[in-house]
């Protein structure tokens, strides 16, 4: 069982370029999330999806977009990357969007925007 896979593992990107981070889960979880992890700031929620076909904004959504065409995939797109988007990005999923549910995390994508 793979759980959650993310691609690429790492990427160096020129500012202004468009980039899509991929996330796929094989647990048939309804809810999925994108976080960014920055030193001293912990994890911050970018976008979430409670179920396929729906998405919502988290704490730091500006400059990012997501889609949820099916249960398994939840790509994160940076339309025009800026250096402040240099971070480690984690995708996560949970069985439902309930408050008690455990979130399962992918291995992360390290993104550097120059």
């Amino acid at each position, binding site marked *: 069982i793979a759980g959650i896979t993310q691609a690429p593992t790492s990427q160096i990107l020129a500012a202004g370029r468009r980039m899509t981070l991929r996330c796929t889960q094989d647990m048939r979880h309804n809810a999925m999330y994108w976080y960014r992890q920055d030193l001293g700031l*912990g*994890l911050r929620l970018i976008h979430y999806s409670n179920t396929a076909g729906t998405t919502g904004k988290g704490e730091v959504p500006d400059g990012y977009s997501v889609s949820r065409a099916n249960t398994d995939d939840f790509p994160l797109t940076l339309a025009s990357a800026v250096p402040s988007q240099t971070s480690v990005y984690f995708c996560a999923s949970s069985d439902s969007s309930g*408050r008690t549910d*455990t979130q399962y*995390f992918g291995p992360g994508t390290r993104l550097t925007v120059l």
Partner: protein
Amino acid sequence: AQSVTQLDSQVPVFEEAPVELRCNYSSSVSVYLFWYVQYPNQGLQLLLKYLSGSTLVKGINGFEAEFNKSQTSFHLRKPSVHISDTAEYFCAVSVLSYNTDKLIFGTGTRLQVFP
């Protein structure tokens, strides 16, 4: 507003010594509390969670945490650490925001275990 404070950014400790990682939260409503661990170059995984009932929660790898409502704390403890416990530990609180659950994470505590 809900928030989570992890008081120590780094905790160095020798192998086989006890350790406590501190977490305080602020919330005007009832909360669910979580501890996640992140090993080097990996994603986060759940250590334990408090939902209700007994205030002492046992998790994986010998860790436990105690929910203290009066002190709004959820400190993580282990009586004897191993080198393999070296990792980043995140406390998180679950709140209901709009129509979805949202986890609010603390800034993390890096546990460094020395031989």
